[in-house]
């Protein structure tokens, strides 16, 4: 298996380096470590693995469920009337603190789609065409009501900084099947709107898990991975010459000291060098057919959400374990009617395309897709920031899942008649995490690592449940 590094005598190595690609030959000698096809800590999975990977579509800012997924005719009737106090007394509010609370009816029409008549807004026609493949949850809730803590909670299951993100947990547990690419990848696109809410790198931090599990951001402009490109004037061949020299000299050192990190460092320099070729290969979508580009509705390299969806599929094909896309600018305190349709348009077709594309390639069955914001929005109107919008809300939000054993065509849970609070089959973020881990073959309450004395879990301290009703 893995030879004892201390026993690899320097002489056994030198013969290898003199052969052109000595550095690569070295890899097989030392046993691979690092990002590539690395096994996770869970060598034997306790549950059947329905999902081999996750594509998590984060709609940063908090899209309004009341205009997209949660149809509330009663709220339309109440439009302009005071929000009954029975709903709101003693409840947490964000920007509407201390303001008069007025009902605001849905701003867009809903219609039924698919065999089961999934209700979706007119803003999501393309998603409607694949309604039988997705499961809408209308009864999701979260603990946090401001963007930063809510993102933290959605990503790490905690509102305290320093915890590992879900992508880190998953790659820690399952490792990655990607050769020469990170197992946990983050891509960000920004809506062509106003001033989007910030997001922070802590949302893909590995927290107290080993750093190699941190999310690696792929960027559409500049170096796709930070520091990926050679310095100006340095060719791939001369980079290779330097890496080989470094590794060769390090190998000499490995024979003299008791430092197993030397071998790892050699492997990581090889890995970095390979990534310098594999990442541009991944990012280069010129090989995608015109038909595919048309399906997603994007141009290569435009940095759009749709382009990132193509990259997500390419990453999935190459074995990345957790692929997280952010699309920013859903925070519609105002201009809901004007801006929300633009955001919806930026993602609607691409989501349909991603599902369709994965199905065509036979990967839909083992890819879990999750579409979600960090919180929902109020049924009360917000009018102090210009043309009406809705405030942050944590008592109710909608989201959808697809693929990997999730029941298609299902609408799960319900909110009260005004869409204020989840009432039926209430789900929590921890339930969502538990469900995701379950589909990955992991028992969420037994998947722990010691931190500050506790058996820390992604799903937190309070009991949480797998949402079994949405699973086939």
């Amino acid at each position, binding site marked *: 298996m893995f030879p004892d590094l*201390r026993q690899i005598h320097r002489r056994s190595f030198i013969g290898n380096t003199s052969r052109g690609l000595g550095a690569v030959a070295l890899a097989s000698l030392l046993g691979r470590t*690092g990002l590539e096809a690395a096994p996770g800590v869970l060598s034997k999975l306790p549950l059947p693995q329905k999902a081999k990977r996750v594509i998590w579509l984060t709609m940063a800012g908090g899209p309004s469920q009341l205009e997209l997924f949660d149809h509330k005719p009663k709220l339309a009737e109440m439009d302009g009337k005071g929000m009954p106090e029975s709903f709101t007394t*003693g409840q947490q*509010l*964000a*920007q509407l603190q201390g303001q008069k609370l007025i009902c605001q009816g849905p701003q867009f029409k809903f219609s039924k789609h698919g065999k089961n008549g999934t209700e979706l807004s007119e803003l999501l026609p393309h998603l409607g065409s694949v309604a039988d493949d997705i499961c809408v949850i209308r009864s999701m809730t979260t603990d946090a009501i*401001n963007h*930063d803590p809510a993102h933290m909670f959605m990503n790490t299951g905690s509102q*305290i*900084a320093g915890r590992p993100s879900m992508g880190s947990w998953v790659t820690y547990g399952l490792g990655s099947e990607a050769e020469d690419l990170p197992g946990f990848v983050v891509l960000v696109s920004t809506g062509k709107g106003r*001033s*989007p*809410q*910030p997001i*922070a*790198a*802590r949302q893909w*931090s590995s927290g*107290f898990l080993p*750093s190699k599990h941190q999310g690696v951001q792929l*960027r559409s*402009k*500049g*170096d796709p*991975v*930070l*520091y990926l490109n*050679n310095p*100006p*004037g*340095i*060719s791939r061949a*001369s980079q290779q*010459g*330097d890496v080989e*020299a*470094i590794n*060769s*000299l*390090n190998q*000499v050192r490995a024979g003299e*000291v*008791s430092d197993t*990190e*030397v071998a790892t*460092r*050699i492997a*990581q320099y090889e*890995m*970095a060098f390979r*990534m310098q070729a594999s990442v541009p290969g991944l990012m280069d979508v010129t090989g995608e057919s015109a038909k595919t580009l048309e399906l997603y509705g994007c141009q290569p390299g435009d940095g759009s959400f749709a382009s990132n969806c193509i990259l997500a599929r390419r990453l999935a094909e190459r074995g990345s374990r957790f692929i997280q896309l952010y699309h*920013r600018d859903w925070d519609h305190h105002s201009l809901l009617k004007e801006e929300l349709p633009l955001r919806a348009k930026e993602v609607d077709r691409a989501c349909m395309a991603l599902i369709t594309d994965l199905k065509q390639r036979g990967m839909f069955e083992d890819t879990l897709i999750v579409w979600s914001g960090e919180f929902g929005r109020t049924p009360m109107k917000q009018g102090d920031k210009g043309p009406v919008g809705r*405030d942050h809300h944590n008592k109710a939000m909608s989201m959808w899942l697809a693929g990997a054993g999730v029941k298609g065509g299902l609408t799960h849970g319900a909110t009260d008649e005004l869409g204020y609070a989840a009432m039926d089959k209430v789900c929590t973020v921890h339930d969502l995490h538990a469900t995701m881990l379950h589909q990955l073959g992991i*028992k969420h*309450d037994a998947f722990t690592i010691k931190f*500050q*004395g*506790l*058996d820390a879990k992604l799903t937190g*301290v309070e009991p949480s449940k797998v949402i079994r009703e949405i699973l086939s």
Partner: protein
Amino acid sequence: MSARFALVTLCLAVSSASAADPVEFNRDIRPILSDNCFYCHGNDASHRKAKLRLDIREEALKKEAFVPGKADASELVKRLFLTDPDEMMPPPDSHKKLTPEQKELLKRWVAEGAKYQNHWSYEAPSKAAVPSTEKAIDSLIAARLKTKGVAPSAEADRRTLARRLHSDLLGLPPTPEEVDAFVKDTSPDAYAQLVDRLLASPHYGERMATAWLDVVRFADTIGYHSDAPRNVWPYRDYVIRSFNQNKPFDRFTLEQVAGDLLPDSDQEAKIGSGFNRLLLTTEEGGAQAKDYQQRMLNDRVRAVGAAWLGQTTGCAQCHDHKFDPFTQRDFFTLGAFFADINEPDIGRREEGMLLSTPDEAKRLTELAGEVAKAKKALDVATPSLAEAIAAWEQELAEEGKPAPAAKKTKAKAKRKDPDAKLAAQATPILKKPAAKRSAAEKTIIRDYYLSLHPEALKAEREALAQAQKTHDTFRAAIPKSLVTTKAAVVRTVRILPRGNWMDESGEVVKAALPHYLPQPKFEGRVPDRLDLAKWLVARENPLTARVVMNRLWAQFFGTALSKNPGDLGAQGELPPNQALLDWLAVEFVDAKWDMKHMVRLIVTSEAYRRSSVATPAQTAADPYNRELARQSPYRLDAELVRDNALAIAGLLAPKIGGPSVKPYQPDRYWENLNFPVREYMADKDESQYRRGLYVWWQRSFLHPSMLAFDAPSREESCTDRTRSNIPQQALVMLNDPTYVEASRAFAVRTLAEKGDDDHRLTWAWRRALQRDPDAKELGTLRKVLTERRAAYKADPAAAKELLKVGLTPPPAQADPSELAAWTHVTRVVLNLHETLTRD
């Protein structure tokens, strides 16, 4: 049996009871009970099952958990060996499973009388008998090595010692000349002299500061949401100064926790009190004041717990600690010490205390005087203005016109335009008779009139504006730092059920120390922050000195004596060599918290000076080197990776202290920040070459080359950095312009050496590693040089491209191809594992 399994078995043998030794509760039993049983049968009453607690012997006996001396009659033992899922312990749904060895140990423990011990770190430490202060460390290590039968390594060679000392005490590499001088110095006290020289260097304070800045979570930005900047860098200088002056650690503590309350509080103490302001804050719209008031209290309790007490407190925000005696009440009473800190709950922090020198203070007073004078001149001229205004009003009234819109008013900018606002304010006032207007209203009318009549009092107004501008510009350049001041009204602190800030049903509590630790009585008064600070460094506090010495040890050996420096509680580790940690703790207090004394004792010990090359016997007996028969090699910390490269390249700007610096950073790395959108402006002067600890610490997007080498975001207290080895580190070292420029500067230096290729290759190698390369090493470098030289001769344009990287232009007379080729050689040297490693 695999080799790995053999190692594990041996490793266990090092730390637990052999069949012959009696079982020891703290060493053998508490870790098992804590990890497997206390979750349901421990300190947290709300979660306790069957009302049974096993963390206190009397309580366990009351519930007849065991019969001391009679293992077979003991319920606890019986349950361990059952297989019925309803009866067995731990139950299956806990996902806990004891090994057969652990079960046997518990059985033996009960058979031997089920003796308990108080938790080791809550007992006062004492000094074991040692031959002398100087030999204490080695004698305590030797005693353990003898019983374990492990032979210690010999002393490392002098070059390694010099490198190690420079790295550990300064964080900078020695020059080859310094190493040569030390190697040749045959005087018996050469080593001690070197230690003294390094301890006296101003870079010592920089080296020591880094670990402390991690612990107190020092950063330039607020953390949440907008992650906006705040003024705190003078606190970093304070920490550096404190270590350099060898400020006693007790004073250092008092200043940080309660510098504002000290009877002899001065500017220095106040800057230190900035510690209380280093937490995460928010400027997010829609944030609720009470929510963040609570988050800040929690943040402070966790930080004090980690930095001084080595206690994990975070879980007690919602419930009693599962493993330690720390209760939810302790959490909130500890938090209540900080309820007097004057600060906004949400929103922008204040600019901070003005840190002017006496000269600056004088000048500022003068400039303020100029402003006052200019104002007065304007007021003196006011009578004529009053007449002009009256006339103007008369005119308006006669013409029957409405108040005109102020200048520059655009409908679009209405909300933000101050002139438009003024017009809106003035309109109703103008309808009042002048005699009935308040003073404030008169001012509005005056300002309004002036905004419409730029010619009125032009000279006076310009003079005032100029004076104000001069004053403000001067003031803006004076450093400011967030400090602690006492609020007029102390915030009410309640125990929050389940930690929920919206639930105000809990009891109101006053400040109090954790109930389970020795403490003074505060007769008839509520203790304040100063009392807390004094208690943290009181002799009877069993934790602080241990916690600080435990972390200090990690700086010199790579691993702390109790391996989780943030947790000396039940789930932490009983240090394999507790006698050593306790001796260091007591000595630290006896020596009046003299940090340099402790550092000197550690680095002059034989244990510190040992070679880090392990013998097979050592590796087999003690794979993780917990018994310290040898030294350990490890990678430099993120900041030192940078410092090391810049120093070797001759680029390092050795200035101590000052505002944070901005090294090159990839474009658009901050693109996801907002409120406001920010563009990163890399420094264009010597700040580009400052040490890593001065790098701008943006919590939400820490500089990527620092992040790659495990620098923490400092959102939470970090007592123990991870030390990873990931491909991003290779990308940084190879491609980050900082390291490309360092390679080039290093090459320029190398080419300035007179001699042939081999001479120069050797010179560069020695600069980085302070040793000669062997023939193979030299051959590898020569190959790089030859190949690159040929390639760049054929493609001089590529050479010129490479040389353009970085601020510093290459020497005009340099041959681009030659310099570029050498840049590859030096780049290889800077990337070597040995260059990045302290061994």
